[in-house]
């Protein structure tokens, strides 16, 4: 499979080839070693590569995403570079102005870093823990479900629906996320479920 021959391995091979033949063939001898030492390693040789897909439109252009140790968060990998996947038969390595700038989306100034919470009537978001947020949402949902869930209709037929809760499901999540979203929202009895297919 193509993915076994990683681009990084290929580039390593190529750069060794350049140093070992072209410069050598011109006979620069010791200069060659000094020069080679002064050249910074090509950035892609120190990165990890993954094949991914553009998050925006439904052409689903293949992407090669490169990552390295994060500068902002020690011990984590962060994206350092994105380009089109040359192996993808649809986009063949190209990206449009959206896909080509996707790294700025990952690092957007308005990227959400922590769970945030706005109390009724207030004018600000405050940072909260995941545990606080999840506990509170679960409680709000349970309270309303207990109050408004309909087990049977007037004819006594089981209908098991929760009419007062809505879920807008994203169409840029994976199929697996979509299926889990389905299970959770429908499993709770929701009928107010919608995604971007209609709009």
């Amino acid at each position, binding site marked *: 499979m193509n993915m076994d021959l990683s681009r990084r391995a290929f580039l390593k091979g190529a750069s060794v080839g350049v140093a070992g033949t072209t410069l050598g063939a011109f006979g620069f001898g010791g200069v060659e070693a000094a020069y080679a030492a002064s050249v910074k390693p090509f950035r892609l040789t120190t990165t990890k590569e993954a094949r991914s897909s553009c998050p925006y439109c439904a052409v689903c252009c293949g992407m090669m995403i490169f990552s390295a140790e994060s500068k902002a968060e020690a011990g984590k990998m962060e994206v350092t570079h994105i380009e089109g996947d040359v192996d993808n038969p649809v986009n063949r390595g190209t990206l449009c102005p959206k896909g080509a700038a996707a790294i700025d989306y990952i690092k957007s100034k308005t990227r959400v870093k922590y769970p945030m919470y706005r109390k009724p009537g207030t004018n600000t978001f405050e940072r909260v823990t995941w545990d606080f947020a*999840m506990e509170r949402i679960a409680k709000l949902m349970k309270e309303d479900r207990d109050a408004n869930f309909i087990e049977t209709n007037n004819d006594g037929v089981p209908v098991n629906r929760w009419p007062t809760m809505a879920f807008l499901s994203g169409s840029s999540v994976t*199929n697996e996320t979509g299926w889990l979203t389905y299970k959770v929202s429908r499993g709770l009895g929701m009928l107010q479920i919608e*995604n971007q297919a209609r709009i």
Partner: protein
Amino acid sequence: MTNSWTDIKNTDLVWIMGGNAAEAHPCGFKWVTEAKAERGAKLMVVDPRFNRSAAVADHYAPIRPGSDIAFLSGVVNYLLTNDKIHHEYVRHYTNAAYIVRDDFEFNEGLFSGYDEEKRSYDRSTWEYVMGPDGFAVRDMTLKDPRCVFQLMKKHFEIYTPEMVERVSGTPKDKFLKVAEWAASTANGERAMTIMYALGWTQHSSGAQNIRTAAMIQLLCGNIGIPGGGVNALRGHSNVQGITDVGTLTAAIPGYLALPTDKEPTLEAHLAKRTFKPLQPNQTSYWQNYPKFYVSFLKSYFGAKATKENNFGYDWLPKVDVAYDALRMFDVMHQGKTTGMLCQGFNPLMSIAYSGKTVAALSKLKFLVSMDPIETDTVRFWENHGEFNDVDTASIQTEVFMLPVTSFAEEEGSFTNSSRCIQWKWPAADPYFESRKDIDILSDLFVRIRKLYETEGGTGKDPLMAIDWSYENPLEPQPDELLRELNGKALADVTDAEGNVIRRAGEQLAGFGEMRDDGSTDGSMWIYTGVYGPKGNFAQRRDNDDPSGLGVFGNWGFSWPANRRIQYNRASADPQGKPWSEAKKYMYWDGQRWTGPDVPDYVATIPPEQATGPFIMNAEGVSRLWVRGLMADGPFPAHYEPFESPVKNPIFPAIRGNPAARVFNNDMEIFGDSSEFSIVATTYRLTEHFHFWTKNVHTNAVLQPEAIVEMSEQLAKEKGIAMGQLVRIWSNRGEVKAKAVVTKRLVPLQVDGKTVHTIGLPLHFGFIGETKKASPINSLTPPVGDANSQTPEFKAFLVDIEPVSGPVA
């Protein structure tokens, strides 16, 4: 798409209408360029604007927004009156020969069975005449005056080239060239592809727009052949996959249906959907509906689903009212909704009539946003001056903004608009405290179930019945979830002769292995095969294309059954021979159906059996006449948008689509042409994706602020200079944008009146790096298509005026 992006290279003629692929799908549009360069294919574009696709077209025709059915019906009429149709295809592969009931009528724009108060039809007169043998009656000579073909001739005769010009504003010669070029493919030797997007769907007659296009392709014989098809370009990256999975009000994955109150038992539900063939020897594939349904139930409820409890049918919610987005916000506006979860969704920007949306959100007790970035919706309670002028202190909604991983930080599969399921691998770690959607929702679900376990509560049983047997219930893995979608054998599965074809515990290789006795599971039958016994085919990356036809059969997995062109049996004639050497694709080799693709047909059925190529339909053929399957008519008819600069020139008594829903029958919400004389339409720019990329630095630099495109004539009339700030208002709200005065738009003559159109890119809001703006949907009407309820974003009325101040 019926075909695929890479298949476009096989075409001889590309027709783009209701979309602008060069602008909105640039990397897919390259296949149009390929067909032009390598095959000498022609490109024609019909659009209100001379857009980026038109800029590289061989022919461009302008059209007034919202008049597409008149234009397309004009093409249908042209093909019929000039006898430019693919006769054998029409006779054998469509329902042209079927006889329609005697009491069906069409008068003054209304089909028989209309109820004005309910704004809907009793569709019983739209059915076929049934014979004593239980099959539908046909006249294969197509001469019977009540056959679909003859009814069609009569129905469409009014759409003459002159009428098209009068209604659509398209100069007659420009229209005729489109019709002639389309007709040049009605022969099995040349192919035309039609590419469309939201420019067709976002109308009150959106579904009929696409249907009329499909009729043209059927008359020309362009469905099921390489380089043909009706191809939806689609919006969001995984909108295809998420539509398949069916996170929609009344859906079950794979286009199955949630039960309604009128179907108290599983038997009653299945009986309504297990369609028997309408002709002898037809496949009528929906006969297998019970197998797919029971497999879903087995997957959803696991071991708790048994034969005795009808596989858990009673636990499923039953639908009383279907909630599309417009209805959801209408109900919320009435104060009937307590909470809402928004996953990667920004409704304040994307739902029609933003003024109503913000008022509706303010009535929620709580709102949860799960998104990698901040949205305008999650800050709906914040005052942003004229752009979001709310009284923060009075809004009592509790709001949670949860950080979610970005696309690069997770793995799983996406289904592109070619229906190809492709895996992506994670490239980085979750950003700061962000978590995956899967983990957040699992955490929430497990917590809620724990509360029910400890405290009890209403509706506990159906909630506890959901199968959640993941290795780690708090972090189900994408690999597990895709296997679940695919399905497996729970007991040995045997064929008709009793041979074991799948051992208990093995993944299913195809949906043909599904059973209705509880011996198989699988959440979504159409994806079965993507993760069969041989592993995860979404991860396949073999980009070999031995036929050279852009099939790429070993790249990912295209549903259904890894088929790349749907209805491909129709690429051969009734005897099984290719229509022509040029269009050779799937054919009968004397033993079986073969060719570069997976046949959309039972591979061993010989041509003599006359089994139709449209195996999903009970007729075995495609439908030029849709019987009662559409809400607004068995044929399309031209209806004006709800806000229109003219009265319907063909059916003057009718306003809008008579079967479209208007909340509380409230016509007041619509503006009138006496007050608002300019047509407005919304669209995307190549530099932006909806409302995300205003948060992305590069894209915000490329397109930094809201613009309005208008013709030189209109700018002059209104005294507006290039770059000047313009106020645009409708009956519902107003926005401001900078004027782009352009030759791309021209006024058109419609029914004796000069009609101006302005163009409004939709990307701007009050959150992000672009200059603050009001949501464009402040202007749009909350009315949707009669079938899909897709809002009418593409044709509504406004007025404009210059705002004094410096021009930049």
